[in-house]
């Protein structure tokens, strides 16, 4: 080789394999050295067709826009109108997704409640029960009913504003959960009725019902216990949205919560997060189609989540037929998760701000996904709540800006016709015409 170079003969340059890339090879070496798969928090990190692949068309001669700052553009949404005598009325269609006390610190849960309440929206418990701080600081609190039933009791059920039966989540449809022992403080252990310090598994299936027929009876029981007052949501991961939505409605849901694979988790296998489930834009129109086929669109509300970051994402989700969205990861970032101000600490953990995802290890420099008292103290729940409120306000203003530009006086009036897709993949998944055409792959009446 050296001789060739000295003689001036061109040589083949080193080429990295796209298949066996450096990150892939590093993971193979890590697996070979440790014998254990990677567990992490968060949602899918791979690039996926997403809301960024959709654009709004805006008004023109054929559409009449609303004045950007002055004309009314409503944002309120009511969830749970089908059966509940006390549906949830929200000022904005952006809710806070379920995240457990245990996975998150007490102050983090309090901050979520404070921020949501200031913004006039709801927050949601998680796998671990309801804390007094969370209930006390959340004007509207959705109580999750999970397979583990950790902390489940009728008193908390009755002081909830809605009940969310969790069948699955976008990060791991078909999977349960694990809260590692280092996050099991005395309080977390007591709430979950397990010894301190052991790893707590959350089952992937509910213990006392199996299929949709059983689920219908389970919902009857929950309604009887709560006097038919509060809405009952059913949350599913983005697996088979048409059938899951159909069965959720059949089982009696007031609200369907649909979570795409970009949605986060406190902890699961990386292979699960990256390889199971569908991107949220592939799920929304299918869920809406199911509701429309049943004549239930808008009667059973649809809340979607999984990678919602901006008001544009909110507007796009609603244009595709969602009634509201939920945010989890974005809310944590608003509180301070992965903030570069903790870069030194992230480096000490072998990572960097923006990439930190070992939420299960309890060493979160931002003090959010931890039960360590010193780390927890880094998050001021009042300041955290203020930051979340600001962020929710900005998202709402952004969504309103887009809706007005499309001539809509309510975010709910956004419609698929307002959108176009930038890529064939997004067009096919979202059933939105490719930009510059009136066609998308699979459009009824067309061939492809």
């Amino acid at each position: 080789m050296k001789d060739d170079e000295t003689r001036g003969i061109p040589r083949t340059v080193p080429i990295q394999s796209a298949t066996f890339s450096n990150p892939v090879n590093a993971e193979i070496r890590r697996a070979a050295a440790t014998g254990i798969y990677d567990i992490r928090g968060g949602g899918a990190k791979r690039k996926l067709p997403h809301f960024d692949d959709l654009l709004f068309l805006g008004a023109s001669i054929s559409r009449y826009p609303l004045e950007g700052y002055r004309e009314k553009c409503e944002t309120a949404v009511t969830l749970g109108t089908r059966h509940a005598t006390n549906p949830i009325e929200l000022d904005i269609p952006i809710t806070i997704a379920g995240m457990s006390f245990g996975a998150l610190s007490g102050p983090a849960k309090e901050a979520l409640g404070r921020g949501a309440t200031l913004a006039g929206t709801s927050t949601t418990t998680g796998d671990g029960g309801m804390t007094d701080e969370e209930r006390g600081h959340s004007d509207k609190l959705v109580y999750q009913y999970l397979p583990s039933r950790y902390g489940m009791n009728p008193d908390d059920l009755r002081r909830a504003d809605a009940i969310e039966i969790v069948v699955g989540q976008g990060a791991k449809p078909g999977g349960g959960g694990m809260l590692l022992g280092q996050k099991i403080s005395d309080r977390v252990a007591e709430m979950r009725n397990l010894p301190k310090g052991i790893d707590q598994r959350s089952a992937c299936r509910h213990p006392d019902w199996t299929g949709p027929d059983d689920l219908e009876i389970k919902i009857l029981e929950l309604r009887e216990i709560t006097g038919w007052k509060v809405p009952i949501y059913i949350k599913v991961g983005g697996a088979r949205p048409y059938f899951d939505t159909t069965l959720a409605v059949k089982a009696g849901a007031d609200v369907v919560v649909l979570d795409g694979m970009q949605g986060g988790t406190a902890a699961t296998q990386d292979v699960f997060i990256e390889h199971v489930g569908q991107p949220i834009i592939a799920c929304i129109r299918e869920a809406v189609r199911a509701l429309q086929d049943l004549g239930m669109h808008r009667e059973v509300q649809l809340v979607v989540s999984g990678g919602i970051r901006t008001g544009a994402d909110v507007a796009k989700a609603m244009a595709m037929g969602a009634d509201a969205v939920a945010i989890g990861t974005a809310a944590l970032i608003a509180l301070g998760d992965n903030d570069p101000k903790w870069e030194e600490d992230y480096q000490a953990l072998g990572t960097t701000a923006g990439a930190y995802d070992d939420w299960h290890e309890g060493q979160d420099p931002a003090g959010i996904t931890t039960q360590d008292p010193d780390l927890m103290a880094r998050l001021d729940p009042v300041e955290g709540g203020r930051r979340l409120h600001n962020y929710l306000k900005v998202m709402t203003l952004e969504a309103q800006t887009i809706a007005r530009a499309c001539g809509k006086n309510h975010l709910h009036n956004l419609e698929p016709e307002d959108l176009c897709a930038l890529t064939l993949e997004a067009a096919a998944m979202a059933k939105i015409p490719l930009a510059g055409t009136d066609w998308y792959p699979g459009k009824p009446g067309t061939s492809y």
Partner: protein
Amino acid sequence: MQTIDLQQTDLRTLNATLHAQAETTNQTTWTIENPRGAHALACGLDAPIEVTVNGHTGYYCAGMNKQATVNIKGSAGPGVAENMMSGTVVIDGDASQYAGATGHGGLLVIKGNASSRCGISMKGIDIVVHGNIGHMSAFMAQSGNLVVCGDAGEALGDSLYEARLFVRGSVKSLGADCIEKEMRPEHLEILADLLARGSSTAKPEEFRRYGSARKLYNFHIDNAY
């Protein structure tokens, strides 16, 4: 005594009436006639009342019970006394699957047999079964006591935590991490009390005790099949 006939009264009225009973109610004795397998009967009770159901019940009878005593003069469908917090539920007949699932407290007595997944994910409830129990019972059981005067089906106590299991008859197989443990005097004492409260004439000495080997308590890759 108050009587509610489900041929004349609907489920909502029944449960609302029972829920309306305050801690200090003097209407402490209730009878439900003609249940005919209805679901969610007498669920969510929270008063020191005694409810007798004259017949068979469907799913989730006495679900999330607190304080109340519920007597079922028949057999019970799936999920009887699920997530019970306190009080007592007594079934004269058999119980279907998930009996006492995730129960946090109280006493569940099944005078017949119980189907699969009896005591699944139990969190403090005491369950006494006079007959046999089906497969996967006490799966992921966290705490409390399960007493089986007959035989236990396959995979008893799979992924068990701290619940105690007492079986008088045979065990078809033990689930992952469930092992037989020494029956010490304190366990005989606990068992004698449970048998007495469960109206069983079985002798504590006739039972074997099973519990967790505690090898799955912390995640280890060799356990992740």
